[in-house]
């Protein structure tokens, strides 16, 4: 697999999903360390994970501050933030990683079939743990308005 082609596909997909469906202006950052994105002690960060298999296997992890996730969830639901529940926020974050993952593989090579699992929310501890998996890692940091997001892809086989 070509790493650069995957990075391009991931960035295109992030833009398609967040700009098309959430009207969120984005900028890609050059840092590759989650600890430089947020103050992990102060900000609540939600992490969603999606496993995939196909010509190669692995997983995506999407990181987003809970405050921004709440705002995106309200936008998705078309209601005020006060009416958004924790479950709505979690469903929205899971849907975002689902769309980004599907779109990434379509943009990378739509002649090959990748199977996507059902996304789930994981703890940041689990995120760190999976960061040490053997395999190729791509980390993309994204700046938006006053927030930061990140997408990591780990290819394990």
């Amino acid at each position: 697999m070509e790493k650069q082609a995957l990075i391009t596909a991931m960035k295109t997909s992030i833009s398609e999903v967040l700009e098309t469906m959430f009207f969120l202006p984005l900028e890609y950052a050059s840092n590759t360390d989650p600890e430089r994105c947020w103050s992990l002690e102060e900000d609540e960060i939600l992490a969603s994970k999606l496993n995939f298999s196909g010509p190669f296997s692995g997983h995506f992890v999407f990181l987003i501050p809970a405050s921004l996730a709440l705002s995106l969830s309200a936008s998705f639901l078309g209601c005020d933030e006060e009416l958004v529940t924790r479950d709505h926020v979690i469903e929205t974050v899971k849907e975002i990683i689902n769309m980004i993952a599907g779109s990434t593989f379509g943009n990378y090579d739509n002649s090959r079939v990748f199977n996507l699992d059902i996304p789930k929310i994981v703890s940041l501890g689990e995120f760190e743990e999976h960061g040490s998996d053997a395999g190729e890692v791509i980390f993309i940091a994204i700046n938006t308005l006053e927030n930061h997001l990140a997408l990591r892809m780990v290819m394990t086989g």
Partner: protein
Amino acid sequence: MAFNVLIVDDSLPMRSVIKRAIRASGFSVGQVFEASSGREALKLLRNEWLDLVLTDYNMPDMNGLELIGEMKNDELLRTMPAVMITTESSRQRMEEFIEQGAAGYIKKPFTPEEIREKLNRIMGKTEDGEASLNNGDEDLDF
């Protein structure tokens, strides 16, 4: 003619977005029903007057293709168009959707304009809302 639509997705936020996108698209929509699973969808399909189903593919218990399979095995539901709304994007998977009975598919992320164009074509209408001569299953850009 306004079409009654059933949206099937296990994610409430996604059902909400699809519903608002259909309404914003200008597609001629009447009542919109929602189901959070394939089983709930089948119950609604047998009890409500519906014209079109929009279903997610990747759902727990019964996926979108299994739902379409159940519809094809039901004498009353087999002719009702079902459109897959999906994050899947390989050509092979899209061909599989059509071969197994989907009337078309819409890839996520989508815009209201894409929804209007696809649904008008599937329901046999032109962009200006007039009924077209073809039956809607030709010329879809799969």
